[in-house]
């Protein structure tokens, strides 16, 4: 019986994947994405991952001259799985927030994608603030406060959908918790469906994701409304998540991202995929 247990453990260990580790520069890495966040990362019918972040990941790996495997993982499980070593890097449109920095580390920002509300065109918010081009950085809360107060007024008593475990949820909890009912969804397309069905009055998500949804014919009666927000609870934009111990890997990624920003690769990719420039300003 004992030898059987040992044999079984041997089999498990032999099939288990040892993942790159610690301070030495790795030769090959596994990058995880969500695979359900078009146009940033999604899966095509033949099972391949595609999108802005997939192109970027391949570009970065070529710059670092290491072998990369890209896999998809549920959003909820990304950080816990990184921690237990299922993969080495997260590139899943994840904001660099203080809360996440408590448990994992991030590279520098590779994209900035503010968040905003999307509502029916004939709603209070839709009529008052459709396609508001303003932009607020929440690091300067005093400046954003009037805009937030106005939104709170317009959204009072409404039900707002948001993807769970996101900075978007943090934002709603911090500034709107007393005024609106927050509903948490596992994926973006689920809150979009409920918006279309009229179960919720608004959704709050990244602007590029809203644009992708609003381009669909079923969403002709909906519009993005109110200003966009970044900074503050949204942290420092989108970055690649790594384990705190993997400092060498982080340095390599940072260098590659710097190069990709400098030579216009990120600008080129973002125009291809999201039709706007998401290159970080600094």
């Amino acid at each position: 019986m004992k030898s059987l247990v040992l044999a079984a453990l041997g089999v498990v260990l032999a099939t288990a994947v040892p993942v790159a580790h610690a301070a030495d520069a790795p030769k090959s890495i596994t990058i995880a994405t969500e695979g359900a966040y078009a146009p940033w990362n999604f899966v095509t019918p033949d099972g391949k991952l595609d999108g802005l972040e997939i192109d970027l990941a391949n570009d970065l790996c070529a710059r670092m001259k290491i072998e990369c495997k890209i896999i998809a993982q549920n959003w909820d499980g990304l950080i816990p799985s990184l921690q237990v070593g299922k993969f080495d890097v997260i590139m899943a449109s994840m904001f660099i927030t203080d809360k996440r920095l408590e448990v994992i580390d991030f590279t520098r920002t590779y994209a900035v994608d503010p968040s905003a509300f999307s509502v029916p065109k004939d709603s209070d918010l839709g009529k008052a603030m459709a396609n508001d081009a303003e932009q607020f950085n929440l690091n300067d809360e005093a400046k954003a406060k009037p805009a937030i107060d106005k939104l709170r007024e317009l959204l009072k008593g409404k039900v707002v959908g948001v993807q769970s475990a996101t900075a978007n949820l943090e934002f709603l909890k911090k500034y709107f918790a007393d005024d609106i009912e927050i509903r948490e969804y596992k994926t973006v397309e689920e809150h979009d469906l409920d918006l279309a069905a009229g179960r919720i009055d608004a959704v709050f998500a990244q602007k590029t994701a809203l644009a992708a949804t609003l381009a669909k014919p079923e969403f002709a009666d909906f519009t993005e409304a109110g200003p966009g927000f970044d900074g503050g609870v949204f942290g420092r934009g989108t970055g690649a998540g790594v384990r705190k111990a993997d400092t060498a890997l982080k340095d390599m990624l940072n260098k590659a991202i710097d190069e990709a920003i400098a030579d216009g690769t990120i600008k080129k990719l973002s125009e291809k995929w999201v039709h706007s420039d998401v290159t970080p300003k600094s």
Partner: protein
Amino acid sequence: MIDLTFYAEILPRLIAGLPLTLELAGLSVTLGFCLALILALAQRHGVIIPAIVRGFVAVFRGTPLLVQIFLIYYGIGQFRHGLQAIGLWGLFREPFWCATLALTLNTTAYGSEILRGSIASVPGGLREAARALGLTRFQTLHRIVLPLALRQALPSYGNEIILMIKGTSLASIVTLMEVTGIAQGIISESYRAIEVFVGAGLIYLTLNFTIIRLVGALETRLSRHLRRDGNTGGKPVAANLGNVH
């Protein structure tokens, strides 16, 4: 090693989801039992109705509950205008009622099979005896067949209740923050998956253990007359837990 302060912090938050878990399970088990009884009885005569019931049962037993909840919730959303016209949208707009509907239909399918089996297991001689005594069909059913069938069904039905309690853990996919939904929320802010799931597991285990005990006590009580001595009582449920979906 074990961080007790963390457990002390998360357990009250998880328990806050317990009323919702209990409401979902309680409502769906109660409604499901009534419907299951009707379906089990409806299957005994005729051709068309039993065929429809069998189809319903096969579909709900043959697909995962996860898919059922999702399809019912988002599927109903697509028929908004039709439902508004008949005034039911107010009900199905709420995730709670959609989840309750999905869980109820699911447990109806399983429950009707359990009850059908236990009704069929009532010896035919008892029915004949009842008729010989001049009881009407309704009286026979009400006084003879159902009491015996329900006692027979009790252990399996106890399992079904436990499976429904476990089934409510899927309600978080339609935005309901019951125990598992809250657990996932806590993980997304603390990233301590194992501790949170152990905490949630303890809550479910306590709940289900209580139900097992209650059903066991009820069964012991209902089978007093079958006991040959004082020692056979107390574990009939355990002996029957093998009867699952």
